[in-house]
């Protein structure tokens, strides 16, 4: 009968198995298919679509984006919000993480800080609308202590968006930084101390070089989140003015003008800028030590 065929069949299976492809490995297929269908394909489709403008040549969408100040200025506006917020969050997170690492019971603090991350940007925007308003508790408190004489305008401008990104972004940046800081063996600091290094030298020579790779990752993740700010830019900012960020432009193109082609082009530009900044930061990170931050054999 077909013994030869069976042999062939078995040997193919054996060969696959020897390379690690057996029944168990096939379990990844649904997840891979999902990612290809809902992540990779839309990206490729969007990329292709961005070169199919409603009117004009292949590059009409991109040409329009970089010619129309209402569109290209969104890049600068977004960066003008995202870069300062990310730097502020990161610079504040580092000393706080260094203090909190010495705390015995960190859990209550981390739980409180997880709250704004979990509640999300929409709720924070809604809360800040009340809290930062001219009759809100913040302005009232500042006036009570005589710091200001009349309410400061913190809503529907740059600062509303900025503050909402601090509220949601700082906990995120802090928790990431904390995980990197606590990953450094405390014995390394002790060793440096016994060798005569003062607190500032210990930070400069021991912690900082070991933290730079983690801080670079933290910066990238925090930046990318701030760069894609959307609900708070609409609700707390001036979505037609100083806080018309790039995601608003993309959203309006898609869902208000129904120009999916232009929307895709804007999304591609957004992704490209994120990629460029992340790539740049990670390239700089490559100049530093990247091994384990434990002492000796981990």
């Amino acid at each position, binding site marked *: 009968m077909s013994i030869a065929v069976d042999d062939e069949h078995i040997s193919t299976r054996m060969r696959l198995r020897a390379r690690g492809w057996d029944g168990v490995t096939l379990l990844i297929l649904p997840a891979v298919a999902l990612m290809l269908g809902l992540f*990779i394909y839309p990206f490729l489709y969007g990329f292709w679509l961005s070169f199919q403008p409603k009117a004009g040549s292949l590059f009409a969408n991109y040409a329009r984006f970089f010619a129309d100040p209402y569109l290209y200025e969104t890049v600068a506006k977004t960066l003008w919000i995202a870069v300062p917020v990310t730097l502020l969050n990161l610079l504040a997170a580092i000393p706080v993480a260094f203090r909190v690492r010495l705390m015995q019971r960190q859990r209550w603090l981390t739980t409180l800080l997880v709250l704004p991350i979990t509640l999300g940007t929409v709720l924070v925007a809604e809360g800040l609308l009340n809290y930062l308003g001219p009759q809100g508790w913040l302005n009232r408190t500042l006036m009570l202590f005589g710091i200001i004489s009349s309410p400061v305008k913190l809503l529907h401008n740059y600062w509303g968006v900025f503050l909402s990104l601090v509220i949601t972004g700082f906990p995120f940046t802090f928790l990431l930084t904390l995980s990197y800081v606590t990953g450094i063996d405390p014995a390394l600091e002790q060793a440096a101390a016994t060798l005569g290094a003062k607190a500032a030298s210990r930070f400069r020579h021991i912690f900082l070089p070991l933290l730079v790779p983690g801080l670079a990752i933290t910066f990238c993740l925090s930046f990318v989140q701030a760069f894609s700010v959307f609900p708070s830019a609409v609700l707390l900012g001036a979505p037609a003015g100083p806080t018309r960020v790039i995601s608003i432009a993309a959203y309006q193109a898609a869902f208000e003008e129904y120009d999916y082609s232009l929307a895709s082009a804007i999304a591609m530009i957004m992704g490209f800028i994120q990629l460029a900044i992340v790539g740049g930061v990670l390239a700089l990170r490559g100049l530093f030590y990247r091994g384990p931050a434990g002492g000796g054999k981990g």
Partner: protein
Amino acid sequence: MAISAFAVSDATAAPSMAAKPLSHRLWVTAVWTLIGFFLINLIAMIAAVITSSFASRWLRSWLPEGATTKWYFSAWSEFQLDDVLVVTFQVVFAVTALSGLIGVPAAYAMARREFPGKKLIMLLFLLPMLVPPITYGIPLATVLYRSGLGGTMAGVILANLVPTVPFVILVMIPFIEQIDPKIEAAARVFGASTLRLFTSVLLPLLLPGMLAALLLVLVRTIAMFELTFLVAGPTSQTLVVALYYAVFAAGVRAVQSIDAMAVIYMAVTVVWLIIALRFVNPAQIVTRAKQTKAH
């Protein structure tokens, strides 16, 4: 030389080492003030929403004139919260269940097998966690609308799976790796079939990790605004999207009514967050798999 050594010891002669220099104490105070300031503002912001939701009239004063619960009833009917909550839980539970069904087996394969292309597949799972949802959400929404899934509940569920399936995989891989493969081998030696192996050996071992991962997926999906917003239609809105529209159209409804809805949203999220925090470290919500790998 020896004399100067004495001088130094005299200058710092204090009862114990606890007496740190002033600059150090100032620095510590400054850092704690920073944390305190942040937390006070955070808590006050949340408290303001809650206070407003119970306020009868609140204008130009520290506290409202009186307390009432009527805004909860008006919010419930104005925003059709019964419908919205039903949709929210349908979406959230479907996403959680599907993420588990797709993610856990994939994580098992990733943890137990070495095969060519594994690094590339890992990158495929990492990318949706790193790229913010609004960036890939617009092309994704475009594809879903073109295929007729836009605006439907199926579309919303599919869109939400993009970040949650990789999340489950990345949380579960280190968890599965720490389970000794010899346990499975031993079960095989004792003659367990694949099904029995799965139900009586693997499932109980995986359960704690799955519980943690899926609870986090649940909390994240309740709060997932961008993807749901881009894909949902009027009948497939979740609570967070409905809240966005309500705030966006502020002025149409009473502020207190929107605040009441925000409190309901917070309550739903926080209940699940508290349940989740019984099983996971809060830091894990941000640092994902990294934390579980640390000693």
